[in-house]
């Protein structure tokens, strides 16, 4: 093969390879454009079909159509990807052939040339190089400076806004604490300020400012009278005092989740089936074992099934459903809800509200906040809880923080989220196994603690920082009953384990007992008495200080609902919908026994003259 042949051959090969490369490159570009248009996840047609399915959830034909369309879209997408990959290899092959052919072509074409006599003038070149270096160097510097002047340091602005917020909040709180108690006397006001000052100076935590409020009292019953004149610190937060909390029923088992409510004139007789003393009855769209919570005229419950999770707001005066908030489109929320048992469900945790927003948590780990008119404020997923029954610990709020017990099979933790933003304010890892009990707020020397019980510890946490203040290793098993708290004594118990009374200040175990133990019903402690309801239907009263068994009522039907003290009486609902009412007394004195007409389980909520019970399907307002 002579040089001419080489030249011709390499020229032709290069030409063919060039055309081939150009064609493949063009096809690749087209394919790339096609892929960007046909992302199966972004498919508008599929979205439209899914939207249609939402309206017609049981349309099997539509489901099949969606599956087929989805498969087709994916096939097309992966086919295009395969084409791109294959095309890329073909292009690479073509490019190699082209490069080799060109090398051969140019080597065959080149001729012997004499070395250049005059080479590049090095001196002139160096002088230009100097200019070039200075220009490029200066250009780099100028560009960097330009970029620096055009960029804003946003982090600084965050610091400023955070500082302002930090400075403002306590002032607001302090002012509102004083203003919100109009019924207080002058002497009370003085004590408020004094206590507030003390607390602020001693603890430097103004959000836990304590005050004393006097609840107006008209009742003639001795025990109720006693409870009415008691003094308690205010839960100062965003303008909420304990007095205001006590006017409402903002969490599971009422204010502070202690099972003690201050409302009066609570009915003691009704018949749900016959409609006796039933003010209204409303069906709840989706099932849930959570208990109603109340703020003002609004009552909140939640419901869930595998398709969706919802929050319902009812007008508590007439039972009208005011709005429904759907907990959807939450990042991190599982596409398929975790498997939970039927007697727990996905909406077992009771909601809470601070009067500005209502908060809900579901078995999926979704936490969501709506304002009082149903506008979604924030939502986040805490990670799907590894819980073999389903997450059931209820929410509670104080000082602008939302407290969540999140003990799962993976790890135990308790956390506080910011009510306004949902951001984590603190998070504390707990040396505890999974538990289902709800947090209880306990006031100790003017400061609040969050008290939790689980296997193996009963522990108190600082509400402001999440610091574990104390813990006592005394519990075991699958703990579902929340603690009772009164007079500086925490009472914790669990079935097949034991009941212990712990001095919250010294962590001394005052007494313990293992005869009557609750499975799900939380413990009620108040004014020297402790009430425990076993799952097999025995309601028992103990002495708080000594642990002495005072009385027991063996009615024999299962109880998951928690006893609540209201209007001097203890209300206990059993799973069959029968509510037994006992006098708050050291002797057994049954006041009444009323039938709801449907199964129940949640704990009732109270308002003046009214009792709100969630049955299996319906929500009942009992009153005269």
């Amino acid at each position, binding site marked *: 093969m002579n040089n001419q042949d080489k030249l011709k051959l390499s020229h032709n090969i290069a030409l063919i390879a060039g055309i081939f490369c150009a064609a493949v490159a063009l096809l690749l570009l087209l394919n790339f454009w096609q892929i960007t248009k046909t992302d199966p996840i972004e498919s508008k047609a599929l979205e439209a079909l899914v939207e249609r399915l939402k309206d017609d959830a049981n349309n099997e034909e539509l489901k099949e159509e969606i599956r087929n369309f989805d498969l087709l879209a994916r096939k097309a997408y992966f086919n295009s990807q395969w084409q791109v990959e294959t095309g*890329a290899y073909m292009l690479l092959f073509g*490019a190699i052939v082209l490069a080799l052919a060109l*090398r051969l072509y140019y080597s065959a074409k080149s001729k012997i040339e004499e070395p250049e006599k005059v080479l590049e003038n090095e001196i002139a070149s160096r002088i230009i190089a100097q200019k070039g270096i200075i220009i490029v160097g200066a250009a780099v510097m100028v560009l*960097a400076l330009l970029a*620096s*002047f055009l960029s804003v340091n946003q*982090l600084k602005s965050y610091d400023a806004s*955070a500082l302002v917020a930090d400075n403002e909040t306590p002032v607001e709180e302090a002012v509102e604490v004083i203003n919100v108690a109009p019924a207080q006397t002058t002497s009370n006001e003085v004590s408020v300020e004094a206590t507030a000052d003390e607390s602020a100076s001693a603890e430097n935590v103004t959000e836990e400012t304590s005050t004393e409020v006097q609840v107006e009292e008209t009742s003639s019953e001795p025990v109720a009278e006693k409870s009415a004149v008691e003094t308690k610190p205010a839960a100062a937060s965003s303008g909420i005092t304990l007095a205001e909390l006590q006017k409402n029923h903002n969490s599971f088992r009422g204010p502070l989740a202690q099972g003690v409510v201050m409302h009066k004139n609570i009915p003691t007789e009704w018949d749900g089936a016959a409609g006796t003393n039933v003010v209204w009855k409303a069906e709840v769209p989706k099932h849930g074992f959570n208990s109603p919570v109340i703020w003002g005229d609004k009552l909140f419950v939640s419901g869930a099934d595998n398709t969706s999770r919802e929050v319902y707001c009812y007008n508590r005066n007439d039972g009208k459903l005011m709005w429904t908030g759907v907990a959807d489109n939450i*990042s991190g929320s599982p596409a398929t809800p975790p498997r939970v048992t039927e007697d727990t469900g996905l909406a077992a945790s009771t909601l809470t509200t601070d009067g500005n927003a209502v908060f809900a948590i579901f078995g999926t780990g979704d936490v969501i906040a709506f304002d009082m008119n149903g506008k979604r404020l924030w939502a986040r997923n805490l990670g799907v809880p590894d819980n073999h029954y389903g997450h059931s610990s209820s929410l509670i709020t104080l000082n602008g923080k939302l407290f969540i017990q999140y003990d799962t099979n993976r790890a135990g933790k308790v956390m506080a989220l910011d009510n306004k933003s949902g951001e*984590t304010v603190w998070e504390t890892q707990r040396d505890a196994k999974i538990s289902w009990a709800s947090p209880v707020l306990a006031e100790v020397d003017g400061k609040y603690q969050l008290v939790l019980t689980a296997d193996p510890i009963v522990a108190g946490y600082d509400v402001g920082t999440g610091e574990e203040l104390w813990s006592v290793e005394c519990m075991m098993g699958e703990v579902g009953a929340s603690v009772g708290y009164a007079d500086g004594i925490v009472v914790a118990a669990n079935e097949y384990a034991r009941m212990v009374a712990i001095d919250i200040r010294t962590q001394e175990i005052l007494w313990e007992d293992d005869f009557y133990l609750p499975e799900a019903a939380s413990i009620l402690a108040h004014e020297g008495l402790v009430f425990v309801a076993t799952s097999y239907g025995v309601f028992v009263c103990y002495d708080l200080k000594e642990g002495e068994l005072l009385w027991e009522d063996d009615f024999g039907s299962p109880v998951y609902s928690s006893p609540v003290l209201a209007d001097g009486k203890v209300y206990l609902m059993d799973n069959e919908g029968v509510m037994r009412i006992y006098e708050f007394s050291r002797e057994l004195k049954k006041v009444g026994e009323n039938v709801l007409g449907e199964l129940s389980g949640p704990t009732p909520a109270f308002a003046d003259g009214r009792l709100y019970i969630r049955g299996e399907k319906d929500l009942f307002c009992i009153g005269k």
Partner: protein
Amino acid sequence: MRNQLNQNSHKLQATSHKQSRFFGFKSKSVLFTFAFILFTFAFNLLSLNLSAQKQRFPKPEFETGYEQPSPVTPEPRALAMEYFDVLILILVLAAATYFALKSRSRQGILWLSIFTLVYFGFYRNGCICSIGAIQNVTLTFFDPAYAISLTALLFFIIPLVVTLFFGRTFCAGACPLGAIQDLVVVKPISLPKWLNKTLGLIPYLYLSLAVLFAATGTDFIICRYDPFVGIFRMDAKFLMIVLGIAFLLMGMFVARPYCRFLCPYGVLLSWMSRFSSRHLTITPSKCIQCKLCTHSCPFDAIDFPTNEKEVVKSGLGPKRFITYALVIPLWIALGVFVGAKSHTFLSKANQDVYLAELLIAHPELRNDPDNIDVQTFLASGKPMEQLVSEATAIREKFYIGSMIAGGFMGLVIGMTLLNTVVFRKRQDYEPHKGNCFSCARCVDYCPVEK
């Protein structure tokens, strides 16, 4: 022309001694023995590798025959295989050095670079490479929680050590990025010296940014913007493929554009190579000033004899040298100032800083379920205060780092300027020790025999 000259020079030095060599080896048996040992060792290690990669829990099997793709590219490699890579690197470096310095065989280096391209490029998917190892080494110094692998450290150090003694033979035959560019050189054009010098600033800038981003734990930009790794892996994003192909197309006429005007590792190699005692020479003996090699280097890395008369006449003498030397501190000060000023801008490349600023500037994005960055952060449960404080700490690091990087760039500009007025007495045509890739192209042009 070069190939014609090549043929010509071959004719000039056609001796039976040279014909009997293959890749510079004296006999074929040596090659076969070497290949046999190599492949036996490779086979043994490969079987070891397979057993090491056994899954603790087997992956689910699909009836359709679907195979699950690996989530990591390239897949994690057994430690023994990593050491095998180091061994290959050492062998390739030894071979490249042998071909460049001892046997002076361009053909040997060409085939070696093809092997490198296939092994380190397409088979090892361009990872690990010495260029990227700069970042691993940097991160080791600045992040106590980061432990560099011995392989990465060796990949970083070995080529530098070899270069310190023998010049940039790593670039000639052991770097896959160099190899892919070298193979597509078709009709290289000679760039004027001033352009070479000016563009030569870019690698220093790239190196300083790469070190800055690695030291602050922001990003490995050398790997992220490697134009050829996408070609090696066949999985790059569209724009990176376009960039890679653009570099290759450009490389047909401007030889090795990445190596000359971007490669940050090239900066370090260039420094080392300047001190190399046994660098490749164009002529095996004494230069006869035939000028045949003047255009043999596609990388413009041959220095010509100094014309002393011209130098004296030019006025680029001691006066300008002193001026430029005195200006260096000013360049450094300017660089430090610019670095300090631009640290805010540069730190925005950090993911934490970016996220914190995004959430501060646009708090409404918290409610955007489609913003994956924001939603992932929110789901993590990390408090905003923590994110902001971490971002602020990173920005502080950038403040210091940017000043150092700026000062370094100022020094580089000052020194490069100073270099333009420094003339070394040169009688012959010699490869520029810093810029020469030791590809041995020029060797074939020299008619002189030992």
